[in-house]
């Protein structure tokens, strides 16, 4: 019976890797075209493939990398690029907080390694499985690092082969959007989640229209989660 309390323990090393890979492949499928596209743009902005690799290794956050490259090509300063990156990636703070609930007694070393790979996509894939209690940190690490390697390799290939891929081919521009659609559906596990998503979506649209930058993502998420939690508490009283 103790197995049902902590299911991840009964998986051995090989099983964890296979489970992680089977959860990670759709993310990789989405990352290949986007990584290629990023490499192409970065190369056109004047980055050397080594610098592209360095950015994909050290930053590993797609949208902020795209933004940084476009800022670099318009001659923006280092400080403004770094501040923008911070703002765009601040949403990971919420994701890591949300994942921390499932981390149990994991070592700091393992958590540090896991933190590196927290992206929109890996977060959603791992969170869904953690909350179904079918996931452990080992599988989650495989997901994060498989996605990471895919991202690094495809962005470097894009950097080398930039001129051969033209923009918009094969619906590349829609890969992330389609991924988000499915990841959102995974999260709609009941009426409260649907209400949360609707509020967050509407508020995000309004804020994105009236505020510059991407702060709308974090603000709308906090707002929606807080409102819905408030409604839930109020209804239970």
């Amino acid at each position, binding site marked *: 019976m103790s197995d049902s309390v902590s299911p991840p323990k009964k998986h051995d090393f090989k099983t964890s890797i296979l489970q992680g890979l089977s959860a990670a492949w*759709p*993310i990789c499928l989405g990352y290949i075209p986007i990584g290629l596209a990023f490499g192409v743009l970065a190369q056109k902005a004047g980055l050397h493939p080594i*610098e592209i690799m*360095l*950015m994909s290794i050290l*930053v590993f*956050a797609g949208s902020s990398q795209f933004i*940084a490259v476009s800022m670099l090509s318009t001659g923006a300063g*280092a400080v403004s690029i*770094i*501040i923008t*990156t*911070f703002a765009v*990636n601040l*949403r*990971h703070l*919420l*994701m890591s*907080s*949300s994942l921390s609930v499932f981390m*149990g007694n994991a070592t700091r070393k393992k*958590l*540090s390694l896991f*933190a590196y790979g*927290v992206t*929109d996509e890996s*977060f*959603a894939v791992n969170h869904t499985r953690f909350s179904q209690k079918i996931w452990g940190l080992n599988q989650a690490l495989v997901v994060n690092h498989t996605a990471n390697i895919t991202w690094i390799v495809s962005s470097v290939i894009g950097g080398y082969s930039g001129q051969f891929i033209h923009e918009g*081919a094969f*619906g590349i*521009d*829609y*890969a992330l*959007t*389609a*991924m*988000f*659609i*499915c990841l*959102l*559906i*995974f*999260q709609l596990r009941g009426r*409260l*989640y*649907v209400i949360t*998503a*609707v*509020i*967050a*979506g509407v508020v*995000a*649209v309004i804020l*994105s*229209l009236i505020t*510059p930058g991407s702060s709308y993502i974090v603000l709308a*998420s906090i707002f*929606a*989660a*807080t409102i819905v939690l408030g409604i839930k508490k109020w209804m239970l009283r």
Partner: protein
Amino acid sequence: MDVTIIHREVVWVILGMGLVTYVPRWFPLVLLSRRNLPQWLIDWLDLIPAAILSALLVPELVTNGMPRHMSLWQPELWVAIPTFIFALKTKSLGGTVVVGMALFWLVQSII
């Protein structure tokens, strides 16, 4: 290969970007994971994924440009509907990515 190229300012930009990206990813995991969080915070954090994914997705579907403006007649929104239905029926992440890309490509080549 000319490795001296990496001695440029862009390397410092990348290092800075890496640092400010990693810290928000790392801090809550290390800080919160070994604590007993109050139930309201656990409930709140449980709502965050649905909220964040929706906040990432919906503006991409219905707005466009820089600065953003409403744009309901764009393929992003209309392709999202069959993609959404496909995802709902199949619950397949990989399939949804493939179908979404194919539909978007199709619509773009028609327009």
